[in-house]
C-alpha cells in the first residue's frame, strides 16, 4: 500500500486574542485573499469591515417575507369571510378590516421570523454537518476561547509560502495545514 497524501483543504492559524484576530483579518483581506474566514467564540465588533464584507442581506429576506405575511393574511381573511363563504356575524361587514388586524399582525410577525431563521440557515449553508475544518483538532478551541483564521487552499491568490509568511507576519501563534 502506498501512502497517498490527502488533499489540502487549507490553512488554519491561531491568534491570541479578539484584537489580534481583527488585525489579522485586515491583513489577510489587504493581501487580496478572498476565501478566508475568521473564527471566534463570539461575534467580534468590526469584523465585517475588517474582512471587507458587506451587510448581511437578511433584512431584505425578512422584509419580503413580512410583506407576504401581511398581504397573505389580509387576503386570506378577506377571501374566507367575504368571498368564499360570507356569514353575517353580529351584523358586522363581511370585510371587517378592524377585526382582522390581530391575525394580520400575527402572521406578519410569524412569516418575518421564518424569513430570519430560514434565511440565516440558507445564507450560512446550514445544516452542513461535515467540513474540512472539523478535521483539525485545534479547531475545537473556536467554540471555547480560541481565535483562528482559516484560508482555503483553492483561493486564487493563496499559496503555501505566501500564506505562511503572511500569517506569521500578522502574529499567528501557530499555523497548521487542514486536510480535506
Amino acid at each position: 500500500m502506498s501512502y497517498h497524501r490527502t488533499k489540502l483543504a487549507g490553512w488554519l492559524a491561531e491568534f491570541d486574542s479578539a484584537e489580534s484576530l481583527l488585525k489579522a483579518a485586515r491583513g489577510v483581506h489587504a493581501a487580496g485573499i478572498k476565501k478566508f474566514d475568521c473564527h471566534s467564540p463570539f461575534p467580534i465588533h468590526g469584523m465585517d469591515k475588517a474582512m471587507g464584507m458587506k451587510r448581511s442581506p437578511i433584512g431584505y429576506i425578512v422584509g419580503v417575507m413580512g410583506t407576504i405575511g401581511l398581504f397573505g393574511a389580509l387576503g386570506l381573511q378577506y377571501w374566507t369571510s367575504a368571498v368564499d363563504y360570507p356569514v353575517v356575524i353580529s351584523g358586522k361587514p363581511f370585510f371587517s378590516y378592524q377585526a382582522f388586524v390581530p391575525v394580520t399582525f400575527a402572521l406578519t410577525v410569524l412569516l418575518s421570523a421564518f424569513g430570519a431563521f430560514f434565511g440565516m440557515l440558507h445564507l450560512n449553508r446550514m445544516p452542513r454537518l461535515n467540513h474540512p475544518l472539523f478535521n483539525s483538532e485545534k479547531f475545537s478551541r473556536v467554540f471555547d476561547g480560541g481565535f483562528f483564521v482559516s484560508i482555503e487552499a483553492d483561493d486564487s491568490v493563496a499559496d503555501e509560502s505566501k500564506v505562511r509568511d503572511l500569517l506569521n507576519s500578522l502574529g499567528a501563534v501557530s499555523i497548521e495545514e487542514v486536510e480535506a
Partner: protein
Amino acid sequence: MSSDINKSVTMEPPLIEGNPTFESVTQDVSKIVERKPPKAWYPAFAVSATAALTGFILVGYLIWEGTGIWGLNNPVGWGWAIVNFVFWVGIGHAGTLISAILFLLRQRWRTSINRFAEAMTIFAVICALMFPSIHVGRIWVIHWTLPIPNQMAVWPNFRSPLLWDTFAVGTYFLCSFLFWYVGLIPDLATLRERATSKIKKLFYGIFSLGWRGGNRQWRHYEVAYLVLAGISTPLVLSVHSIVSTDFATSVLPGWHTTIFPPYFVAGAIFSGFAMVMTLSVIARKLYHLEHIITMKHLERMNIIMLLTGSMVGYAYSTEFFIAWYSGNEYETFAFINRAFGPYAWAYWIMISCNVITPQLFWFRKLRTNIPVMFVASILINIGMWFERFVIVMTLHRDFLPSSWDYYSPTIFDIGIFVGSFGLFFTLFLLFLRYLPMVAMSEVKGVLPQAAVHHDSSHAPSPGGSQ
C-alpha cells in the same frame, strides 16, 4: 456589540464576577450538563414528572368524559381553564422581555439570564396552550380553529377574539422557539466539541447544524438574531393585549374596559419576572452560578417587579375610579362585588400579593436579600394567579340575579392545574440537564477581554503594516 461602551462611559463594574476567562465560562456552564446533576435534581424530577403524568391522565379522563367534570356552572362557563391559560401565557412574557427588549436596549446584563428566561417562556406557553385546547371539549376537532378547508366548507370566524388567540399565541410560541434555538446554536457547537460519548456527539452535532463560528456565519447570525429580537418585541405587548380582548370585547361589566390590554401586559411582565426570580434563585444556588447570575441581576429584576407591580396596582385603582366615575350601576356593582362580594377573599389575596408585596423592593436591603425576594416572588405568582381568578369570577353574578351562582373547582380542576406545573418543571429540569442554561457565547462577548479597541480601525490601510 460594542463591548467597551459599558466600561469606558458608565464605569460600571464587570457584569460577570471573579475575572473569568473565555475558557472558564465554557467550563462553568458546560460542566452542568456534562456531569451528573445535583442530588436535588432527581427527587425534583420525580415529583414533577409524577405530577405531569397525573395531569395527563386527568386530561385523558376529561377528554373521555367532557368538561362537566370541572366545576363549571351556568353563569361561570370559564373556570380555572381560562385562569390557568392567562396565568401561563403571562409568565412567558418576562422571557421575551428579557431576551428581546433588553437586547435591543443593549442591556448587556441580560446575557446571564436570557437563555433561562427564554426556556421558561417556551415551557410556559406550552402549558398555556394546553388549557384552551382541552377547554373546547372536543379536542379532536381543534383544527377547526385554523383556516383549513373542511367538509362543511365553513371558515373560522376571524372577527372572534378567541380565534385571534390561536394566531397570537401560536405565533408567540413559534417565534419564541426560533429565537431561543438560534441563540442555542453556538452553544450547542461548544457542547458538540466537548462531547465524550458518541450519542451526545450525535445529538449536539445534529442540533448545532454544523456551526463553525466563522465571521461568514456570525454576520448573518447576528442580523438574524437582531431581527428576531426586533419582531419579538411587539409580541411582548401584542400577545397579552390580544389575550385581554377575550374579556374586553365582551359586553360584560368589569370586562368591557379599554384599560385591559395595557393592564394585562404589565401584569404579564410582573408575573413573568416573579417566575424568573423563583427559578433563578434556586438554579444559581444549586448549580453554583452566583458569579454569573449575580446579585445585581437579581436586584434589577426586583426593580422591574416593583415598577410593574405598581403599574398593576394603579390599574386596579383606575378600574374602581372609572366604575364610580362612569355612573354605570352595573359597572359599579361588578367592582363592589369584587371587593366585598362572595369572592372578596380572592380579591384581597390579590391586593396583598400584587400591590403590597412588591413595595418591599423600595428598600435596597430587602431587594438584595435572597430569602425576601424568593418569598416575594412566590407570593407575586400566587397573587397574579388570583388576579386572573378574580377577573374570571366576575361571571358569577351576571345581569339576572336568579342565575347567580358560586363557582368552586373540583378535584379535576385542581389536578390538571397541578399537572401543568408538573409539565412546566419537568421540561425545565430536562432543559437544565441537557442544554446550556447560560448563553456562553453571549457571556464571552461581554467579558472585558472580548473588547477590541476601535481607534485601531482608523489606522492606515492594513497593507502598510506588512
